[in-house]
């Protein structure tokens, strides 16, 4: 049992009573200020970019250091496990190698054919080089938003709005950039919508985050659910921001009109991420009046 506290109600001392009252006034004022900050965050999401950038710059080195430690321990455990399972793994790898050799030959034929067709069409691959290659050092497990932290910032040329991808697929786009660190809105966040198309058939769709690590694929065309389990969706490049033909997700099941897909680039496993320049630039908001209006 905890005894009642005597200090809370400060007896007949006027000074102490006023002090307690003042602390509540400060607290309530602070709550109102906090609500004001939330309203500002709703009206102008980029409003506190400077504050966030500074906070990221301070906290990211800690995460980076810890990440190195965790990886070291993880590698040691992996090494030991590999040693134990060496025999069966060797056999499995030999089988895999045989299969891969066949696939490699097929791929070489395809790439030659592809080069020939490209020459015929005189296509030039003018995809710009990556702005920065950086490590994903963590994300927030406490907040119900899905952000990841990248250890590259405006010093490396990272700006808000640039798409982030890994070798496996699309990760998201930069929302806040500090000097040496930046924050990435993952494609699994509820606020993220990526214009995509199906790899098979090229049907346009939208990939919206669901907040639980998966994305929802909504077909843009009417009628039926064209997706099958195992279908891969790619970015379409519509609307700028994301470059076309980046793998996004693989469909795992259908739910009524939409399909639930799992991102190909699992941010929990990936390590390095590429920040690319925004595709076709971000459109300037005030310019370009709608063409239909007179």
């Amino acid at each position, binding site marked *: *049992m*905890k*005894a*009642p*506290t*005597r*200090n*809370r109600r400060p007896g007949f001392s006027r000074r102490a009573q006023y002090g307690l009252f003042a*602390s*509540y006034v*400060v*607290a309530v004022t*602070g*709550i109102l*200020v*906090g*609500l*004001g*900050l*939330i309203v*500002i*965050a*709703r009206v102008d*999401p980029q409003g*506190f970019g400077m*504050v*966030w950038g500074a*906070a990221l710059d301070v*906290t990211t080195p*800690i*995460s*980076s250091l*810890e*990440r190195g430690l965790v990886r070291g321990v993880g590698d040691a455990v992996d090494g030991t496990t590999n040693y134990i399972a060496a025999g069966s793994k060797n056999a499995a790898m030999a089988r895999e190698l045989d299969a891969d050799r066949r696939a490699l030959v097929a791929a070489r034929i395809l790439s030659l054919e592809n080069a020939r067709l490209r020459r015929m069409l005189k296509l030039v691959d003018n995809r710009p080089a990556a702005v920065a290659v950086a490590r*994903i*050092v*963590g*994300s*927030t*497990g*406490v*907040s*119900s*938003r*899905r*952000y*990841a*932290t990248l250890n590259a910032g405006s010093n490396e040329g990272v700006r808000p709005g640039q798409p982030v991808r890994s070798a496996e697929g699309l990760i998201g786009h930069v929302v806040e950039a500090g000097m040496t660190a930046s*924050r990435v809105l993952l494609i*699994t*966040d*509820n*606020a993220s919508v990526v214009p995509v198309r199906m790899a098979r058939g090229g049907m346009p769709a939208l990939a919206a*985050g*669901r*907040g*639980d*690590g998966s994305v929802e694929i909504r077909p843009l065309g009417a009628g039926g659910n064209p997706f099958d389990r195992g279908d891969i969706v790619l970015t379409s490049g519509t609307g700028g921001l994301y470059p076309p033909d980046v793998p996004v997700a693989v469909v795992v099941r259908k739910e009524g009109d939409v399909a639930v897909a799992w991102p190909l680039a699992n*941010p*929990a496993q990936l390590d390095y991420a590429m920040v690319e320049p925004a595709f076709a630039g971000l459109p300037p908001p005030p310019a370009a009046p709608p063409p239909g209006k007179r």
Partner: protein
Amino acid sequence: MPPPRSSAPPTRAIELRARLVPVLSTLGGSAVALLPTVALAPNWPPFGLLMLLGWRLLRPEMWPAWVGLPLGLADDLLTGQTLGTGMVTWTACLMLADLVEVRLLWRDYVQEWLIAALAIAGAILCAWAIATWTGGAAPLRLVVPQMLTSILCFPIIGRLCALLDRWRLATGKIRASD
């Protein structure tokens, strides 16, 4: 710094430690979010809030209600929630504890856990509502496990606070009000 090995009256250094330990441990709880994990869903308990509640329920007279403002702001910056979320919810939690304390003269372990559970559930729900309003949050069913783990974690955090409390006041009692 090692504590002086005498029963001398509290020095400035000890007083500083007694004041700083609760603040730093709460900040440390918020900084748990910096661990290098990439979470797919919000499933980490808000350790900063748990530490704050642990200290508040252990030492009611230590902090005025407005201490939730700076600590909550630091928590927002460390955990990446919408700026203002921690300021509002943490201060509200402290004021709720004050309210309960005025009515409840004696409280025991179970009641303390109940108060903390109420405050945690309210704070997480409020943070979820704010995230939904400012852009989009995970569906509510994903927040429920976080709420449950946080409530179940609270007794451990309360123990940790008590341990730290004994250490911070180890040589010479500074605030021996109860």
